[in-house]
């Protein structure tokens, strides 16, 4: 403090007080430990209890993992090598990793295909997840579904090309006519897509899949962690547009449309996913034309998509509700019609604030893809519970297998939720 002893009211600071370090007792490790671990009697007890818990877990897990055996070919050999000591039998992972990742029927010389599709997923997903990347990358995102389909299922290259051309035709029609009238563009796009698919489908020669460059792999041969990833990615991406439509429908002031959406959303949210999977496995085929064969994978995709669409619709409804009413009014007062206002003003903003919520739904859904093991699909959990634990070599290797499955899911889900939190922080500070 400067000279303030004279008892006058007038005071002018005659200099700057320099920064100085705090007193020594306010810094250092000891201070930190005392403040954070032993600040009070109860707190010290808590610290000791927590320390004990950590010690117990580590003392069990560390030697088990440290002594782990990686190179034997059955559990009994593991036991011989360990000779009574505590230790894991990780050999099951080194021997059966391919089954855990790809299922037990995917041709083993073709593993590079799903692997490549998986790696490309990051390239395709990046521009959607990170806004700063150049928008041109979205072109690859648009091609990716067809490319991944071709890589994973193989068969004739014509099929994905025709599918892509249909979508491209739809996009073109929508771009051309959608600006004038949304309805014209929208329905025109649907007609264009179906026309291309119909003509293209007729052009694909019978039996083209047999002499294809990439060997065709039927859906029932898919399995392992790959199946979980495929179901998760496919269903989430399909359910976002459906969820948007449902959310807008639920906000509509047309009672019939509003009630259709409400009943659908509340019905789906009210039943467990497993009952919907039962529908996919035993009931859905009754609703397709009698002579059609829709394989189980597709039926499961349909049901899971409906399931996640209902949840995503609720997230987006929250985003729509969070927008100030003034945005709708400003759009109205400029003369924009409903599709224009939604497309240009409302949805871009509502979707942006909904992304963290959508990501949470996606994480939940990805975890729920393990339920397909109940309807005898061999996903990661299905592989463990079925072929691997039932085999004579590996019956009884519980911890190693379940731990590996848990670890795989943890890495993916934790990664996604960290992304979601990063995004939430970013959106909170964003100017636009």
């Amino acid at each position, binding site marked *: 403090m400067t000279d303030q002893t004279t008892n006058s009211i007038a005071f002018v600071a005659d200099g700057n007080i320099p920064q100085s370090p705090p007193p020594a007792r306010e810094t250092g490790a000891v201070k930190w430990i005392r*403040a*954070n*671990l032993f*600040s009070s009697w109860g*707190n010290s007890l*808590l*610290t000791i209890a*927590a*320390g004990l*818990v*950590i010690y117990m877990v580590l003392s069990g897990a560390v030697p088990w993992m440290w002594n782990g055996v990686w190179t034997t070919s059955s559990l009994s050999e593991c036991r011989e090598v360990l000779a009574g000591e505590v230790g894991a039998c990780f050999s099951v992972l080194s021997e059966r990793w391919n089954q855990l990742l790809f299922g037990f029927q995917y041709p083993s010389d073709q593993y590079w295909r799903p692997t490549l599709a998986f790696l490309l997923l990051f390239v395709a997903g990046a521009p959607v997840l990170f806004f700063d990347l150049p928008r041109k990358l979205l072109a690859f995102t648009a091609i990716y579904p067809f490319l991944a389909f071709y890589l994973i299922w193989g068969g004739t290259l014509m099929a994905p090309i025709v599918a892509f051309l249909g979508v491209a035709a739809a996009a073109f029609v929508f771009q051309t006519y959608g600006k004038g009238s949304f309805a014209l563009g929208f329905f025109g796009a649907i007609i264009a897509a179906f026309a291309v698919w119909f003509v293209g489908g007729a052009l694909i020669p019978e039996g083209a899949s047999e002499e294809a460059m990439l060997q065709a792999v039927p859906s029932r041969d898919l399995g392992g962690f790959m199946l979980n990833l495929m179901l998760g990615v496919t269903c989430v991406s399909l359910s976002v547009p459906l969820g948007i439509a449902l959310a807008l429908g639920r906000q509509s*002031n*047309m*009672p*019939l*449309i509003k009630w*259709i959406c409400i009943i659908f959303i*509340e*019905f789906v*949210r*009210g*039943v*467990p*996913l*497993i*009952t919907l999977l*039962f*529908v996919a496995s*035993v*009931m859905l*085929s*009754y*609703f*397709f*034309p*009698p002579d059609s064969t829709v394989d189980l994978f597709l039926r499961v995709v349909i049901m899971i998509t409906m399931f996640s669409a209902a949840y995503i619709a609720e997230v987006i409804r929250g985003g729509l509700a969070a927008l100030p009413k003034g945005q709708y009014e400003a759009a109205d007062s400029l003369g924009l019609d409903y599709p224009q206002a939604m497309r240009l003003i409302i949805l871009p903003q509502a979707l942006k604030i909904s992304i963290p919520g959508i990501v949470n739904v996606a*994480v939940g859904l990805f*975890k*729920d893809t*393990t*339920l397909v*093991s*109940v309807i005898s699909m061999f996903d990661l*959990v299905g592989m463990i*519970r079925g072929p691997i634990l039932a085999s004579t070599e590996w019956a*009884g290797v*519980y911890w190693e297998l*379940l731990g590996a*499955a*848990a670890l795989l*899911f*943890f890495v993916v*889900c*934790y990664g996604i*939720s960290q992304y979601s939190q990063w995004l939430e922080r970013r959106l909170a500070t964003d100017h636009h």
Partner: protein
Amino acid sequence: MSTLTDPPKDSFRLSMLINDTRYRSLTFQALAFLAMALSFWYLGNNLVANLRAAGLNINFGFLGDTAGYDISQKLVEYSNQDSHSSAAFVGLLNTLLVAFLACITATVFGVVAGVLRLSKNWLVSKLMAFYVEIFRNIPVLIWIIIIFTIMTAFMPAPRAFRGDNATATMVFDAFAFTNRGIYTPLPWFSRGIFESQTLNWVLVLLVACGSWFAARRVNVWATAKQEETGERPNTLSMLLGIWLVPFVILMLIMGLSWEYPALKGFNFQGGIKVGGPLIALWFALSIYTGAFIAENVRAGIQAVSKGQTEAAAALGLRPSKVMNLVVLPQALRIIIPPLISQYLNITKNSSLAIVVGYADITATLGGITLNQTGRAIECVLLLMAFYLTASLLISLVMNVYNASVKLKER
């Protein structure tokens, strides 16, 4: 949109169906209805054709047929000679049982973990964050399987308790942890007022309700006294008396006794058996959902702004009063709605019982009954109807709660 008073009737043109706000929405709804009716007609047509081809029909008569399978975990009398509908009823009660138990324990886990996560103790809060992240990011199905594996593969078999060189012993001679489940003593009344044990328990419940009402009266009285005089009378001893005295007297009159489980032959007899599948499901659901509840609790407490705490402290309230009078009432408003939807999730996730062979409604009606009778459509529809009813009831509770605590704002 704008409407005017009765326009001249003769001026109706076809283009008004699209351009006039009065008719536009009707046009769209008519189109939507048409599209829906068409798709329902198409799906229904396929269904009829497929059922005819398979020689099936939709008929719920199978519910009266003999089920023919046993259920080990049951709350009511049931034998394999009973009908499919009674098997479904046993399953329904089992679903409600595991959901109820899991809701209670999940709340306990969640509240403890959520509060500890906000603890000033660095180690404890990090440990709780670890718990939350680990359990939230791994599918509940894997947790159920892990815990079921611990129950079945790592617990001793009942015969390990036998003989002089037994490898396992009972805890306090009352609890047996085996790979078939946990056996605990069963309380029963030797001089029961009623013949039936169930009625005796109902009596106990009634007495407890009476105590609860009395305790409420005491609280109301204490509050009135506080408002009148400014001093709140100490009601602790009174409340203790109200809860304990009638209960103890009742127990003494009816002669409360315990039936201990004992090893007979290859298995334990007597006491209560809590089956391994039930425990696995119960514990896995609790600890998984507990992680989510912990996050809700933490968010709820943190959402009460620091300003509220400071304002209360500035008024001179002690920290415990700040918590009780200012923070908790506000935090509960935020915590309870997601808590109830977590209860809904527990109820729905309990359908995973089928994986560990716990006979809930999904495993009985949607599993064995469906496979035995081949009545897929009927079984799945009934199953959905049950879960939908349960969900709607829980949502109803939530709406009633939300309406009752809504902040009185303009």
